[in-house]
């Protein structure tokens, strides 16, 4: 696995750039990761990221878009507005988690 340094953090990532060890993540890294994909984080973004982190910790896998909407209470439309085009993958990337693998 490649090791890279971002914002002073040494992080392990996969070939696409997703963190392979979620414990290496913190808020500052989240901000840096978001910047790399052209997203400036607002409170609304953080609400989604915090849900992803919490749900991953509890369930052991990255929630799908549907789960962020039904369980996390953030409407799908909002998620598309916050993380345009590919919200599920972008959120997972910023939150330092693997891509969600559920189909829906």
């Amino acid at each position, binding site marked *: *696995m*490649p*090791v*890279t*340094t*971002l914002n002073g953090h*040494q992080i392990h*990532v996969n*070939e*696409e*750039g*997703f963190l392979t060890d979620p414990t290496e993540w913190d808020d500052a890294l989240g901000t840096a990761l978001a910047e*790399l*994909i*052209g997203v400036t984080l607002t409170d609304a973004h953080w609400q989604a990221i915090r849900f992803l982190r919490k749900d991953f910790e509890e369930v052991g896998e990255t929630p*799908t*878009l*549907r*789960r962020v*909407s*039904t369980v996390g209470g953030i*409407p*799908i*439309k909002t998620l*598309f507005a916050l993380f*345009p*085009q*590919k*919200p*599920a*993958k*972008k959120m997972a*990337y910023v939150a330092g988690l693997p891509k969600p693998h*559920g*189909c*829906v």
Partner: protein
Amino acid sequence: MTNTDASPAIVPSFDSEVGAGRKLAIICSKGSLDMAYPGLILANAALGEGCEVHLFFTFWGFDMINKKTMGDLKFTMLGNTATHMPQGLGGLPGMTGMATSRLKKSIADLDVPEVPEFLEQIVASGGHLWACRMSADMNKLTMEDLYDEVEDIISASDFIEKTEGAQLLFI
């Protein structure tokens, strides 16, 4: 492979030029529960990947957007050898109801929504729903009878025009 500290960060190509402007057209022509899902799942997946998606409901697929039937699609074992059950069983009274509720349960267990809610999710994700003019005329249905988020009743040629350059799936 271990890169050193000096290596640049690897950034996923979320917004690469290659996938930009990708468009998918899905024709839903079946009205059974099991055949409704492939189109919905693929539409939803494509939207999540940033594709523009148009669904065209035609013939039996009209049941997926008809307010009267969309929440009550059924699954039958009859004629479906993939259930690996004796075909005669499928014709017994109550079997279609039983097969339907079993399938609905398996789908719900995966947290996949029922058809009406799935359509709602697809529209919220930016998908477009279109109804087939000929199917509407044959069944004497108007926009009033259809799911509210259906954008319009259009002809087959209108749909082909709207989806110029799209990749197409017929289900």
